[in-house]
């Protein structure tokens, strides 16, 4: 699927540029994006290095296990395939918490670490059920404080920058619940297909 999308975007783009004479822009975009990708990876690396270091301390100090213990019933429902006391639970919870508070750059390292733990569990190059669920939660972005949007609204002199917070939280709850339901639906469909 991703192979198709990837090729489709580039092929259609180049074909369109050939017809509409935008090849120069395409050329420029290719090379500026290469730089951009390196810059994004570099700044992401800084965040990853810092947060994974800090989270390792939290793990050793028993903070992640404590967090996992409190929320285990909820996580167990959303991720039924993760065994109790598995370190993935602590990282998934940190990822969800960071997302809720709008700490996008703290959420990513913890989500990636959780993915690694899940990969250890599944040991295959195919996305496991828990991985897809974790992805669904992250793509629907469960936010309580949309920091970036608030910053933009303040910059353009909103009379009430936080007026959208309630609506955003409501929308994000709906999209997260929908993501979980859609995820479940596809899981049961896969299961049914497997049993013929």
């Amino acid at each position, binding site marked *: 699927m991703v192979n198709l999308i990837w090729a489709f975007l580039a092929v259609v*783009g180049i074909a369109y540029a050939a017809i509409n004479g935008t090849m120069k822009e395409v050329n420029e975009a290719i090379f500026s994006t290469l730089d951009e990708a390196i810059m994004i990876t570099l700044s992401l690396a800084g965040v990853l290095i810092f947060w*994974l270091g*800090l989270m390792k301390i939290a793990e050793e100090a028993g903070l992640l296990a404590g967090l996992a213990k409190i929320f285990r019933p909820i996580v167990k429902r959303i991720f039924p395939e993760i065994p109790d006391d598995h370190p993935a639970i602590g990282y998934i919870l940190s990822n969800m918490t960071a997302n809720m508070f709008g700490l996008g750059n*703290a959420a990513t390292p913890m989500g990636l670490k959780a993915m690694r733990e899940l*990969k250890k569990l599944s040991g295959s190059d195919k*996305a496991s059920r828990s991985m897809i669920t974790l992805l669904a939660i992250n793509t629907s972005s469960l936010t309580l404080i*949309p920091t970036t949007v608030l910053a933009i609204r303040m910059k353009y002199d909103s009379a009430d*920058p936080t007026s959208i917070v309630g609506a955003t939280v409501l929308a994000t709850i709906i999209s997260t619940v929908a993501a979980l339901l859609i995820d479940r639906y*596809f899981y049961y469909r896969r299961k049914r297909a497997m049993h013929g």
Partner: protein
Amino acid sequence: MISIWLIPSIILIVLVTATIKKVPSYEVFVEGSKEGIQIAITLLPFLLGMMVSIAIFQASGAMGAILKVFEPLMSMVGAPAEILPLALIRPISGTAALSMTTELIRTFGPDSFIGQLASVMQGSTDTTLYIITVYFGAVGIKRMGDALKVGLLADLVGIIASIVIVIILFS
């Protein structure tokens, strides 16, 4: 603002707890950090490849053309057509969506209907394609199963929810 306090507080809690429990915090930090470098390097090819493809699509004008096709559909639902490019781009490119949101807020004002709708839309969903690329890329998942379908369908629900909620609350 609470968010200014959040990250320093997390660091404080983690370090104080570690010190009380006699965890050698600095050494553990360095040990855990190394994994960050590794993840970033694994990630780079996935991210770079996807970004180039999206950039070609965008720079050629093909993205704009597709957005135009969808515009009448949007006005049929009763949502302003100006919001459509944002709704379509949000799952594909985070930077493009952010710049569109900024542009909409700048043009129409943060307290206008379109400004509110753009704010909610931007805040309530995330860049599905980016997240899938990064999360699966970091652990080398090649067969991603239903992940993309789940993510995109959830985005669709999020976008529709944003429109409905903003119409109810603000107009």
